[in-house]
């Protein structure tokens, strides 16, 4: 019964992010369930949660030039990656574009 009360308290307090960690740690010590100690509580995929690790972004194959200026041709705002017209057609990511 006491455990159930503590569980309810955890769900109620979850919305307060800042205090979450300290409170949950406090709770797990109080409930003393061996299982609860081993499994770390994962943050839900709320928008806030998703941006917490900036290294998780997928890398785009074509990197942007520094300052958006192509170092070889000094073109500002041009296509990223190698020169699209190098094979005589307009190439991007292996696709040829018709225009």
């Amino acid at each position, binding site marked *: 019964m006491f455990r159930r009360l503590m569980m309810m308290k955890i769900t109620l307090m979850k919305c307060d992010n800042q205090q979450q960690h300290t409170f949950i740690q406090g709770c797990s010590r109080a409930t003393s369930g061996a299982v609860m100690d081993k499994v770390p509580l994962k943050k839900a995929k709320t928008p806030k949660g998703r941006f917490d690790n900036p290294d998780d972004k997928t890398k785009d194959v*074509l990197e942007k030039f520094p300052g958006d200026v192509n170092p070889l041709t000094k073109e500002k705002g041009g296509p990223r990656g190698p020169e699209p017209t190098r094979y005589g057609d307009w190439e991007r*990511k292996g696709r040829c574009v018709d225009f």
Partner: protein
Amino acid sequence: MASVRAASRLLSKRVLSKSKAVPAAAVQGSRNFHFSIYGKKNNAKVSDDISTQYPVVDHEFDAVVVGAGGAGLRAAFGLSEAGFNTACITKLFPTRSHTVAAQGGINAALGNMEEDDWRWHFYDTVKGSDWLGDQDAIHYMTEQAPAAVVELENFGMPFSRTDDGKIYQRAFGGQSLKYGKGGQAHRCCCVADRTGHSLLHTLYGRSLRYDTSYFVEYFALDLLMENGECKGVIALCMEDGSIHRFRAQNTVIATGGYGRTYFSCTSAHTSTGDGNAMVTRAGLPCQDLEFVQFHPTGIYGAGCLITEGCRGEGGILINSEGERFMERYAPNAKDLASRDVVSRSMTIEIREGRGVGPEKDHVYLQLHHLPPQQLATRLPGISETAMIFAGVDVTKEPIPVLPTVHYNMGGVPTNYKGQAITHTNGEDKVVPGLYACGEAACASVHGANRLGANSLLDLVVFGRACALTIAEEHKPGESLSPLKSSAGEESVANLDKLRFANGSLRTSEIRLNMQKTMQAHAAVFRTGSVLKEGCEKMDVIYKSMDDIKTFDRGIVWNTDLVETLELQNLMLNAVQTINSAEQRKESRGAHAREDFKDRVDEHDYSKPVQGQETKPFEQHWRKHTMSYVDPKTGKVTLQYRPVIDTSLDEQNCAAVPPAIRSY
């Protein structure tokens, strides 16, 4: 509370005083953002003149534009700017038009990278068209090109820049300096790698400033013609199934190309040549439909093109026996032979039964013999592309490819001003009230072969030209000429017939038959016997349209019905294409025949012209094809029209006399 009231009084005072300073023309009435017809002066009337079962709404405008791609939007807001009450009918939302896929650039002789002259651009375009382009239209386009690009840039299109802030121009196919003698010219202006997307969004954003009424997701069925004059358009509202008749003094067709007649094409599913078909059903001709541009390596099924750089980096083409077949066709150049040689070799392999796949209708492009690191550095992103579009791991499996359509040079014949024309008694005659621009039109700037980066230029220049011509010859608010109250009956009857069609063949089956036939017979490899066989097969398929079966009997958002209407349009384009190709007994530009490998002009231009007899008009092929179809039987009649060989101003820009085209 009192302070709020005072503040609101102050604000309203400011608004009033502001509006005094603004000219009257710019003060708009309440303008709805969602393009409903109720935002404007409400003159739409419901009538039951042509049908008691379908609600028909009549609208009256000064000008109607069919299609909202690059050319359509430019024409629509050009007309609105000139004060015309304009309607823009489109079956897609404007920013979904196929213009958005043109990632390359626009050619213009701005002279930012080196000394440049539009007359050199004119020469390059005339040569590229294999002397089938009308030189007055090419003169108009290349002379207007710098002004058009600067105008786009003033609209806010974010071109890439050089160090000193001018528009950056890069070298791209077929452009030279000093009439071909000065080396490669740098004329192609681009916006990173999304020029078409940016162009379309810029034009759309600009067009919202003006008072154009957009009718989005309205499928244009037919032109309303009376006595050879075009008096408007009849369209189906897909959202609620009502029929709308748009009466207007001026109609502009900007509906795009018809790539979907072929099995493998880069065009969207919506590129169905609606404008060409509407014009054909009105009894008017279409011009040069046999000139279709192919690219050798398009992914099977998806239709995306694989760059020639793959073969340049060492990729090879393989048939079902695992043989590198290009060695037989081009022993020296092998896989690096020119595009048309490669396309033809691939087609011959497929025809002779050495194709791959369950239907043996394509070949493989093998890249897995190259080191993956080299692939990743030289062609970044190709593994992503191959996985997404072909579902193959490019480091382990080959990519299925076949020659793919990507542009249609032909379309509605126009003069350099954008007015639609017919050719009777040896003279060009303007069709009153009808204009065309963009890929749907054939002012013939591209002739027999289109140069890259010229098509986006074509869109904006001729879109503007249509608007200017209409503004010159008509005034806003002109009274409309009378139209029979039963105009458009046949279109509604056709719609009704298709909606309740109960034959045995589905729309998708007939469409696939047509696409496979066109791909097998009217693609890159063209010879007399193959084309004749194709013409007969297409005849049978055209007649099989009488046996069509549709399933959706509803009227609200009936995509089955719309696809069937699009199939009717595609059929008309396909029969004209294959019949014109069969009749044209020469090879010129994109139309290459195995049995007639040379160009047949009025003189043999490989030798000096003096002393040669001029061949009569009937015996040479430097002429435009004008094709008519009888929609009931599918029979095609062909006539011919001479090419315009004089520029608009001989003093300023001399026309280019024909010569042998060699690069």
